[in-house]
């Protein structure tokens, strides 16, 4: 009886795999709409999204939600290059035709009001490709009930983590998303691709009498496999355990006295630095106000570092931020932003790369079908030519011990203060002034053999100074620091990392900490 019931349920779930209009029908609507429009030039963008989300809080299911959403956005261009945009969340040929007319009317209105004209899209190369999902499991391969059970099992283990003082409370979120994008243009371009993503995120809050700090650890992938793997190997659990111990020590730790210090930053912080400080500064639509530009053009050839440092943005299949084609239907290329310390190229889309003096790299991304695409990053990483091997360790504490040992053995350890910053809590950069700030979960002074821990202190400075001080990296390359980039109010998945812990020498323009004088 039970087997029959399971079988019946899985049949239902199989049929739910096609709850959206099927992809072939979508491609037909997109292509037909783009090709048959006679008045101007169209880019038609259709998206469908399936999402399942499970939230657990202190041992209870807090929320399970599902969604199947879809829609289309159409950007129309007049022959002179004025554009208008219209979107709706209904997928029919009739609605597509209505949106085309509406977008074109807005483009005409825009033209009359003296807008900036841009005809670059008329010269784009035609592309045709259909890229299937890289996922091993289909979206509904495992029943929602089973998913809840596995997520709960993983979450329950967290509740066994004990700390010496105070308490820790846990939230766990499991998200599984499948995006299908189809982009058609009037020149016959028709590209479509499926982007599956999944993530398990544990958020802990350590609370003592006068202190409380939240932190998170995550494991990402393309499908439910991450949940099954975590159930077996508990890799994320061990990370959560080590991080809890670290944060608990942070709770009673002193603050760093504000100053200039040599530091090591972990790969999550390095991703933040590469993304916020350099990635955004070379996006072709932002070049005009970027500190890395001169007269509206990227300062190609600018020596940013004497060391051999590379910053690379690359869309990687199976990555959290994967996107093989731009939202304008142009193939996305890897970009060496900085090569051997020299500013080399930017992230250019079809509309502004030429003006910004950079190569067109297919960088346009849109949050959803109703967004107008902007040049964006995917996976960005910071790599140094010189890397120092760090022996494998079992946990964060041992890794910090090894960092000290290796630095000392190589005569790289400063005498009084040499901090390693652990965990990335976010950051922000002013592209015009070049000021940056980043925050970590906590810091350790490697110069002191007792390895004292400190409360997080803001890491700030000038972006043109920071790479001058990057010398090398320690440990193994990691590029799975996931996040969400919110440029211009559009939130897209971002990812990245570094060739290990990044070693930054003391620099007068880079500070750590700030006096809490309130």
């Amino acid at each position: 009886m039970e087997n029959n019931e399971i079988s019946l349920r899985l049949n239902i779930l199989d049929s739910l795999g096609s709850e959206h209009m099927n992809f072939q029908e979508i491609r037909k609507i997109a292509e037909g709409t783009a090709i048959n429009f006679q008045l101007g030039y169209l880019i038609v963008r259709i998206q469908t999204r399936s999402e399942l989300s499970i939230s657990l809080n202190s041992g209870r299911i807090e929320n399970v939600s599902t969604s199947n959403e879809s829609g289309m956005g159409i950007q129309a261009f007049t022959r002179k290059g004025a554009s208008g945009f219209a979107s709706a969340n209904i997928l029919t040929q009739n609605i597509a035709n209505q949106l085309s007319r509406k977008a074109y009317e807005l483009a005409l209105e825009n033209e009359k009001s003296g807008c900036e004209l841009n005809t670059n899209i008329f010269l784009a190369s035609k592309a045709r490709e259909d890229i299937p999902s890289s996922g091993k499991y289909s979206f509904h391969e495992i029943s929602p009930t089973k998913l809840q059970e596995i997520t709960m099992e993983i979450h329950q283990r967290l509740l066994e983590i004990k700390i010496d003082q105070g308490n820790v409370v846990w939230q766990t979120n499991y998200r599984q998303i499948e995006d299908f994008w189809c982009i058609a243009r009037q020149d016959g371009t028709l590209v479509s691709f499926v982007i599956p993503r999944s993530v398990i995120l544990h958020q802990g809050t350590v609370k003592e009498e006068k202190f409380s700090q939240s932190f998170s650890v995550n494991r990402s992938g393309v499908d439910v496999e991450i949940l099954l793997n975590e159930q077996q190997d508990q890799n994320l659990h061990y990370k959560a355990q080590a991080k809890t111990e670290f944060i608990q020590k942070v709770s009673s730790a002193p603050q760093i006295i504000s100053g200039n210090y040599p530091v090591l930053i972990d790969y999550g912080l390095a991703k933040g630095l590469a993304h916020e400080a350099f990635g955004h500064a070379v996006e072709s639509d932002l070049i005009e106000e970027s500190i890395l530009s001169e007269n509206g053009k990227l300062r190609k050839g600018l020596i940013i570092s004497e060391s051999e440092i590379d910053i690379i943005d690359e869309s990687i299949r199976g990555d959290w931020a994967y996107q093989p084609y731009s939202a304008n239907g142009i193939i996305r290329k890897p970009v060496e932003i900085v090569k051997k310390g020299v500013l080399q190229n930017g992230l250019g889309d079809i509309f502004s790369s030429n003006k910004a003096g950079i190569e067109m790299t297919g960088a346009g991304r849109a949050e959803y079908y109703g967004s107008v695409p902007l040049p964006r990053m995917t996976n960005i990483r910071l790599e140094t030519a010189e890397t120092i091997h760090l022996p494998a360790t079992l946990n964060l504490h041992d890794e910090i011990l090894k960092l000290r040992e290796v630095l000392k053995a190589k005569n790289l350890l400063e005498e009084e203060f040499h901090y390693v910053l652990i965990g990335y809590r976010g950051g922000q950069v002013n592209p015009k002034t070049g000021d940056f700030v980043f925050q970590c979960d906590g810091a350790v002074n490697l110069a002191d053999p007792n390895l004292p821990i400190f409360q997080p202190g803001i890491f700030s400075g000038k972006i043109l100074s920071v790479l001058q001080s990057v010398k090398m990296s320690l440990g193994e390359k990691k590029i799975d620091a996931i996040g969400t980039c919110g440029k211009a109010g559009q939130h897209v998945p971002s990812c990245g990392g570094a060739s290990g812990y990044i070693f930054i020498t003391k620099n007068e323009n880079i500070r750590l900490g700030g006096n809490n004088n309130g």
Partner: protein
Amino acid sequence: MDKSLLETLLDVLNQAQIKPVEGFKLKQWRITLAQSQRINIGVKNNNPGSVYTPPSYSNREGGEVFLIWEDDKCSKARVQNVFEREDYWLKQLSLWRLTAYNDHHEMLIPVPEKLPQVQIANKDISNLFTGDNRQIFEHQQKIIFDRPEIALTNASLLASWTRNLIYTSTGIAADFPESRYAVSWSFDSQISQGFAERRFPTLDEWKHLWEESVSRYSLLQNKSQPITKDTVVILAPQVVDQMIEQFIIPNFKGENVLENQSRFETQDFHKEQLFFDEKLSLEIDPLRPEKWTSYILTSEGIPATTTLLVDKGRLLTPYLNTKDGKRWRAHPTALPLGSGGIIINHKSSTNWSQKINEIQDGVLVLSVLGLHTQNHVAGSYSLAAPSCLRIEKGILTGRTDVRISGNMWRIMKSKDTTYAFSEHDNHPYIITTTRPENL
């Protein structure tokens, strides 16, 4: 398809109350839908309607269903209209049942209550969607023509008209419109200003906001005297808004208090702990006419009401949705719907135009970098503030770049902190006793 999304869902859910889905009947349900039209336009790098900010129109209908099954399991799902798929909703029902979960705190569907009279829809904005869209384009042109010549100007303008539909199995059947209008601009990514209400700005409002931003931008071109040991930090309303978002909103959220993820604990409210300055109160008032954060009903169907979170410095209640209200054993409260929904009142507050004259040595912080990275529970911050204006003997003189550090809880507890209001801002200027450092 002839039926609207609402009609379809009503049919589907009413049926499920009679005919079991995957072996279970539906006990109760709630439908929250929005039929929304929106126009966006913008200015990018001094260019109106560039390829990145073209005039955009969107038309969406969608929302959420919340279901309680006969075995008391719940389901939650996002929904939108789907054409030409007859079996679609039956499959969705099955999926919803298969994702049903036990909610430890027994979710509830509210019963109908008297609705408050709150003006949240402005006819002038609906006209934008029925043919006459001149006003939004005129505002765009104003920004282009009046912008400071040397500034790289960016702007965003948005208007929306939404029909809200909230229906429940308990008898709520609400159908009401709402409008929104938001315009914001920035010069060189250093000075930004904006307006967000449920109506167009008046000429006076526009003039004040525009002139203030232009004059501040102009002052930023002057270099000021360095800060001294006596320089005090003044947080501008835009920065106070960000501080509320980072510190007040998460710490007063009922769920966070109940789950021990807030600065405050349940007993702090029950004991009405004195936590802030005795002259300070924090309120949510969604009944103010045409305010961005005003509303008639929450998405759960709870009518708007005012709620005092803090009175005379004492903690009264966190803000509570239906579920947290049940856990708190209280009626759901007003919800802030963003930082603009929290109102700061201080009994000794003054007028900003007078207050500034009294400031001998200060720095006006107009924006900060990295506030979202700060520990929201601890309330401490240490931030770069690269574009501040120096105040010397009551006059704004020029630019200075500083780092500010402090603790928002201590600032709001201190009797030495003062508050000054300007009629065009949602939040006050907060004159702290903290000292800046050179950046």
